[in-house]
């Protein structure tokens, strides 16, 4: 168990160990859905929500079911099942209860059910032996970090519409290069918090 405060973990997950820019998880929707700022914001919000929720749930499953029974090795499959079911359930509830929230957030939920970043956060949580509160903070921080990265990318791509990108690099190609440069910039934060 690490002794870092939850807030430190939250901030570190946003800037220093950004799930997208330092671990390169969740690249698929990052590339595909970063063309519009509005869409990126919705997806980002959905990721924050789902990451926080599933890291909490997965912590409970791991700490109170798998670990005591000595079934730690089942965590991959158990986490995937929990994430998929949770996302589906939340989507259905939002869809029925709040159309406004559904159009802002709910429609993005199925897109991220199988997002590797979501699973990645739950796995890191186990590897780093976080407590429940730390896990929640880490999940929320990673979500915010992912949302920050996709928003920045959407803003850049909006600007790039007017720039003359070599034909062969248009679309995903230039997006990957920009993501790489953004990752380099985020490395500047490393060392601020000892991990």
């Amino acid at each position, binding site marked *: 168990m690490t002794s870092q405060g939850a807030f430190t973990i939250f901030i570190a997950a946003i800037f220093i160990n950004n799930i997208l820019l330092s671990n390169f998880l969740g690249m*698929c*929707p990052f590339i*595909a*859905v970063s*063309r*519009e700022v*509005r*869409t990126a914001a*919705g*997806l980002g919000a959905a990721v924050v929500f789902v990451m926080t929720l599933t890291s909490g749930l997965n912590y409970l*499953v791991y700490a109170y*079911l*798998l670990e005591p*029974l*000595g*079934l730690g090795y*089942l965590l991959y*499959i*158990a986490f995937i*099942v*929990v994430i998929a*079911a949770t996302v*589906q*359930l939340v989507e*259905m*509830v939002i*869809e*029925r209860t709040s159309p406004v929230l559904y*159009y802002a957030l709910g*429609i*993005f939920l*199925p*897109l991220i059910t*199988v997002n590797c970043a979501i699973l990645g956060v739950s796995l890191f949580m186990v590897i780093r032996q976080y407590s429940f509160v730390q896990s929640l903070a880490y999940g929320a921080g990673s979500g915010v970090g992912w949302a920050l990265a996709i928003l920045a990318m959407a803003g850049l791509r909006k600007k790039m519409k007017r720039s003359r990108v070599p034909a062969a690099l248009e679309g995903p190609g230039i997006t990957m290069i920009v993501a790489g440069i953004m990752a380099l910039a985020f490395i500047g934060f490393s060392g601020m918090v000892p991990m």
Partner: protein
Amino acid sequence: MGDVLTAVGVLVGLGAILALILVMAERKLVHSGPVRLTINDADPVEVPGGEPLLSVLRERKIFVPSACGGRGSCGLCKVTVRSGGGPVLPTEIPHLSPEEIEERVRLACQVKVRGDTAIEIPAHLLEVEEYEVRVEAIEELTYDIRRLRLAFGPGVAFRFRAGQYVQIETPIYDGLGEPVYRAYSISSPPQGTGAIELIIRKVPRGICTTYVHELLLVGDRLTLNGPYGEFYLRDTPAEAVFIGGGSGLAPFESMLADMAERGIRKKVTLFFGAVARRDLYDLERFAAHEKAVPGFRFVPALSDPAPDDGWDGETGLITEVVGRSYGDMAGMEAYLCGSPGMIDACVRVLTAKGVAEDSIFYDKF
């Protein structure tokens, strides 16, 4: 051994609990009872409400391409949603151009079928299938034009849009080396069940038309495939001109009967170009359509009436008659069916009169 059992038990238990919760939630929250889905002017079908359009279509064996499996990231599953479907979602906007949004193109994986919905799918996506048909009736319309009535087998539902065509496989006859395929517009309305009608003019030395006119008998079997074509009445308020020559009235008969059936209001004038009175056919059908379809007018025109025809209608080439009948034609739509020569001549006259090129529709075959 105990470990394995525990592991399996835990996983199965976890999965079962989650599945149970999901199934109950789905029962309670998602399904809103059956709704009606209309695909490309076919008769509405009942489908369960609350599901994404893509999976509804897949269940009906209509396979809209999708590379990402419905996650809204590939943007391939585009369909036109004419009614229902709700507002365009932020998940779709990155994949749609402003023109597509204007034309109500949506991603089938993101649209949920919640109420009665009408959609349009590119015709080639609907299974173009091969059908065995039986010649039910042959009717002589003029000395060189025949109407065939082709019946599908029992239980076969052939769906098409008014104006589309089928291809007939001409069997091998008279030393013909291999079967050939020829396209003919369907002249019966899409509401007709179990059979379609085609109007076929005998072309000198034409392979299929000679077969149809000289060898085909009632009760014979034919193979056809289809439906094909983007030649259908656009859902716009614009006034329309139909121009047909020879057997080219076939798609218009289908469209007019469809308009009458569905109560579509659109100002339409059909110009029928023929040489003499002996080339005219189905006049009483079009007279009936004039009564049944408000705004429809039928103008037959003869280019060279015989002296004993007693013709007091329009005379001249069909392009001249159309040219005489209108001043500025800007904003109008034109639907053409006839020989390639007639279509080219009509396109020239219509564009000179101000009809936009993308408002002129025809299938050249």
